[in-house]
C-alpha cells in the first residue's frame, strides 16, 4: 500500500539549532517526493521536491531509496520556520496534484 509516515507530530527546537523532520514512505515503484508547508493562517504551499535537488529557505531533503526516506533538514532553524510540514508522495505516472500526504509535523522554533 502507498503510505507516507511522519513519526513526529510536534518538533520543538531553539533558534539556531539544526532541524530534521522525518519522512518515510511505502511505495513499490519510483515515486516523486515533496515537502509542503503551511504557515499560520496561510494556505498549503510547495516547499521543495526531490527531483529539483534544490535548497529552499535553507531547507534540503535527500531521497534515500534504500531507507525509503525523505527527511527534511535545515542546519540553523529560524523562528519564521515555525509551521506545519507535510511530506507527500506522488505515484509514478500520476499528475502533480495527485498526492498522498503524511499526517504532518508541527515545527516550533523557540527564540
Amino acid at each position, binding site marked *: 500500500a502507498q503510505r*507516507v509516515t511522519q513519526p513526529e507530530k510536534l518538533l520543538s527546537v531553539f533558534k539556531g539549532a539544526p532541524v530534521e523532520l522525518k519522512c518515510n514512505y511505502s511505495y513499490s515503484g519510483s515515486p516523486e517526493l515533496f515537502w509542503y508547508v503551511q504557515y499560520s493562517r496561510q*494556505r498549503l*504551499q510547495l516547499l521543495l521536491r526531490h527531483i529539483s535537488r534544490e535548497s529552499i529557505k535553507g531547507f534540503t531533503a535527500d531521497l534515500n531509496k534504500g531507507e525509503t526516506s525523505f527527511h527534511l533538514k535545515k542546519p540553523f532553524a529560524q523562528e519564521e520556520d515555525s509551521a506545519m510540514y*507535510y511530506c*507527500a508522495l506522488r505515484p509514478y505516472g500520476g*499528475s*502533480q*496534484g495527485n498526492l*498522498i500526504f503524511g499526517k504532518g509535523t508541527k515545527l516550533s522554533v523557540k527564540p
Partner: protein
Amino acid sequence: EAGVAQSPRYKIIEKRQSVAFWCNPISGHATLYWYQQILGQGPKLLIQFQNNGVVDDSQLPKDRFSAERLKGVDSTLKIQPAKLEDSAVYLCASSSWEGGYEAFFGQGTRLTVV
C-alpha cells in the same frame, strides 16, 4: 498571480443537511483537485478533474458526495446528507502543465457538522 479561490471559508450545518463548496482555480489550470483534511490528518484526495472530465474519484464517497466542473473552470463539491464524520477542511487545488504540475492550494472551507 491570483490564487485558488474557495468559498465559503467556514460552514456549520446539522447532520443530514446538505452543503456545497465552490472553487475557482487559477486561470488556465486544466487540472483541479478536491482534498479532504480531517483534523490531525494530512489532506486526502477526493476527486481530480482534467478540464471538465473526472480523472480519479476512487476515494469519493459517492453515496453522499458529488462534484462537478462545468465548462472546465469552476467546481462545486456537494455533500448530501452530511454526517458528523464529514467535519473537515475541504481544500481545492489546481495545476497546469505549464507550471510543472505544481499543485496550488486554496485557503480551504472548514466544515463543522453538528
